[in-house]
């Protein structure tokens, strides 16, 4: 076993708390840190759903409630969803392209270490006398710049902005690293159209960060000036306009949702072929569709402002572009479905999560197409229909993909296998909990229940109770996962190099890989997902399936 093996000799765990420049260490650091923030964000969600269990306000005050959903959204997006896939990509991309490390290892480490600092700063705002930011994760002015007379320069909203800017800097560093790595560090023979789809999705997502994130930074800096330094860019009474903020904000935040989703779709594209023993159907279309998101998602942002101060011609224009973004999304879904058709399926936990995620993603995508239809959106905008739609994306698709990825690459990262039984239990609880928690939001929204309310009309009580119970079930469902992952790190059976008989360069090296990933840099001569190749088309009596 090599010296980078996880938890084999006791002294190796220390490196996860150190300033290591090894992408494998940094990847794990990202993932563990972001999972911690996931649990914190989940706790905030439990409080929210506990309040919404009954129509009246009886658990938290209105201000605290507004702070809860603001921080829940912010933590989940910027400290969980984005960093965890940056972490996974950090670990996997160099391996998948046959490189020894990322292009800029020191930059990589710096980008990671910003995150725990920014996250702590953000969460510390709960302890300020006037509390955290509480204007929603969008922080729309003029609400977000309304300060009470007792608040000074340092307040929940300004800490929020500061933390976001820090996270933004970390993201740009990571994006520069990923894009350079993927363009420059591929091994001989690894042409762009031999890269696994996970690398394509990482490349596309990180390019989008580079192009669009600065718009959010600009918006936040101007907001900070309005908040603390007396300018009036977004204050209508003094000649400014809040609509400018909205455009700058959504110009990033729409592509952002694809930045969150693309790596998850990349995970599906890796896991599904491995457990169906089929090449990914339509690899070339999927690769091109993936990359096409970079320009296409940049021209749809106004659909978040359909009900706003948007002239009719702009609403109709952006409705067309919004509806068209369904096409590359559909290409991927149909490709996965065709990969599963006529296959030889091994029903492992990783695959269950992947398939469960794909099925729920279809519902997420369909509700998305519905929302793109302007008159319908005017009815359900800012209702629970939207909340249901995006949670079907971020939880029922992206988190499912995350769990699929963990079960799939756990042997590679830790050198041990985790328990299948606990994995299946985890899947069952998660799938049930997620459906109970988020499906009721669709009828609630259709019936007109607004989002971000802390108390509601009694007619909405039944569905809210189902949703809250589902949320508590989801909270409980994390336990088998934690038990499985932690215990298996110590007690799991030792994993082979390629326990799934999967294609991909990461499986051609030991589990876990040596310090420089490969004994010698491999040369690639074949297309990806060659499940017909004799090396993968094997009979393995020692496998669990």
């Amino acid at each position, binding site marked *: 076993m090599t010296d980078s093996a996880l938890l084999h000799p006791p002294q190796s765990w220390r490196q996860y708390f150190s300033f290591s420049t090894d992408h494998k260490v940094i990847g794990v650091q990202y993932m563990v840190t972001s999972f911690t923030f996931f649990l914190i964000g989940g706790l905030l969600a439990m409080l929210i759903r506990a309040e919404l269990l009954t129509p009246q306000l009886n658990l938290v005050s209105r201000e605290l409630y507004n702070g809860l959903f603001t921080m829940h959204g912010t933590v989940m997006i910027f400290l969980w969803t984005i960093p965890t896939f940056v972490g996974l990509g950090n670990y996997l991309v160099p391996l998948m392209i046959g490189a020894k490390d990322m292009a800029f290892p020191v930059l990589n480490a710096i980008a990671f270490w910003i995150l725990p600092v920014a996250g702590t700063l953000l969460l510390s705002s709960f302890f300020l006398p006037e509390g955290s930011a509480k204007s929603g994760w969008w922080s729309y002015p003029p609400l977000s710049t309304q300060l009470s007379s007792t608040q000074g320069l340092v307040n929940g909203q300004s800490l929020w902005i500061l933390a976001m800017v820090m996270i933004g800097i970390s993201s740009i560093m990571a994006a520069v690293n990923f*894009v350079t790595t993927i363009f420059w560090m591929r091994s001989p023979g690894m*042409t762009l159209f031999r890269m696994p789809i996970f690398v394509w999705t990482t490349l596309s997502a990180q390019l989008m960060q580079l192009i669009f994130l600065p718009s959010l930074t600009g918006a936040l800096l101007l907001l900070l000036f309005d908040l603390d330094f007396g300018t*009036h*860019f977004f204050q209508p009474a003094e000649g400014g306009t809040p609509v400018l903020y909205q455009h700058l904000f959504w110009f990033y935040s729409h592509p952002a949702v694809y930045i969150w989703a693309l790596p998850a779709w990349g995970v599906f594209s890796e896991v599904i072929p491995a457990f169906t023993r089929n090449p990914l159907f339509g690899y070339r279309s999927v690769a091109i569709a993936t990359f096409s998101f970079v320009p296409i998602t940049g021209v749809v942002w106004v659909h978040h402002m359909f009900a706003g101060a948007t002239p009719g011609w702009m609403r109709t224009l952006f409705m067309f572009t919004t509806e068209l973004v369904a096409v590359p999304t559909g290409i991927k879904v149909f490709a996965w479905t065709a990969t599963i058709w006529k296959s030889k399926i091994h029903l492992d936990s990783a695959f269950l999560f992947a398939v469960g995620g794909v099925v729920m993603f279809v519902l997420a995508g369909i509700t998305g197409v519905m929302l793109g239809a302007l008159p319908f959106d005017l009815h359900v905008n800012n209702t629970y229909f939207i909340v249901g739609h995006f949670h079907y994306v971020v939880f029922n698709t992206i988190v499912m993909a995350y769990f699929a990825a963990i079960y799939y690459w756990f042997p590679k990262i830790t050198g041990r296998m985790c328990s299948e039984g606990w994995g299946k239990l985890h899947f069952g609880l998660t799938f049930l909990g997620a459906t109970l928690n988020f499906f009721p939001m669709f009828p609630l929204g259709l019936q007109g229940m607004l989002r971000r309310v802390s108390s509601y009309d009694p007619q909405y009580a039944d569905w809210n109770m189902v949703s809250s119970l589902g949320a508590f079930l989801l909270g409980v469902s994390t336990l088998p996962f934690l038990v499985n992952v932690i215990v298996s790190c110590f007690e799991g059976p030792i994993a082979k190099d390629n326990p799934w008989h999967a294609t991909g360069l990461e499986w051609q090296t030991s589990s876990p890989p040596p310090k420089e990933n490969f004994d010698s840099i491999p040369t690639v001569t074949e297309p990806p997902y060659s499940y017909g190749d004799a090396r993968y088309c094997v009979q393995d009596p020692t496998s669990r399936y």
Partner: protein
Amino acid sequence: MTQASPRDGQPIHQNQNDESPFNLQQLRRNLPSWLQRFIPSGGGQHEDHHGKGMFGMTIFLLSESMIFVSFFASYIVLRLTTTDWLPAGVSGPEASPTVIFHSAVLVSSSFVLYFAERSLKRQQLTRFRLLWLLTSAMGIYFLIGEVQEWAGLDFGLTTGMGGGTFYVLTGFHGLHVTTGILLQFIMLGRSFLPNNYENGHFGVSAASLFWHFVDVLWLILFSLLYLW
């Protein structure tokens, strides 16, 4: 499997069979050489630290430009729509001879920088250091001029949209000028280390590109703030 040198221009791949819809190598060969150096020619370039570094620096600067694009867009939108640009009697930023001179100094410093870099490539170390230092001095001169201009203006940060956008735009630009000068000082210091340029002069090239970026930004800023 031996690796071909990344500089000989030949594609690395032994086997071109992949599903690429177009021939990327052909596309790259048809580009001018100054553009080619930013774009890898296929797998196996990890030894080319200079090319890799300049690619990273270039995409970073393109991203950084987007912050300024968002500021420019905000400036244009506010200028066109607000009812409160500047109060009556306040004339706003003026392209006085002083301002024009300072701008000329900043923009010329890019040319000085170009000659500095050329001297380094020709291994004329002393000449490089002198021209490099001159560039920094011109940058500092510009910054001092900016501060003096700020002190002499009859509007502040909170004086309408005009005041706010002016100080935010010039302030962030000044921040980038300062960063550029700091980078130059670091590179100047490192030029005194023995064998500093054994692995190429990526640091100098990167600091150089950053400075040109800062200058181009000023040209746009100047047009928006003073000429419009």
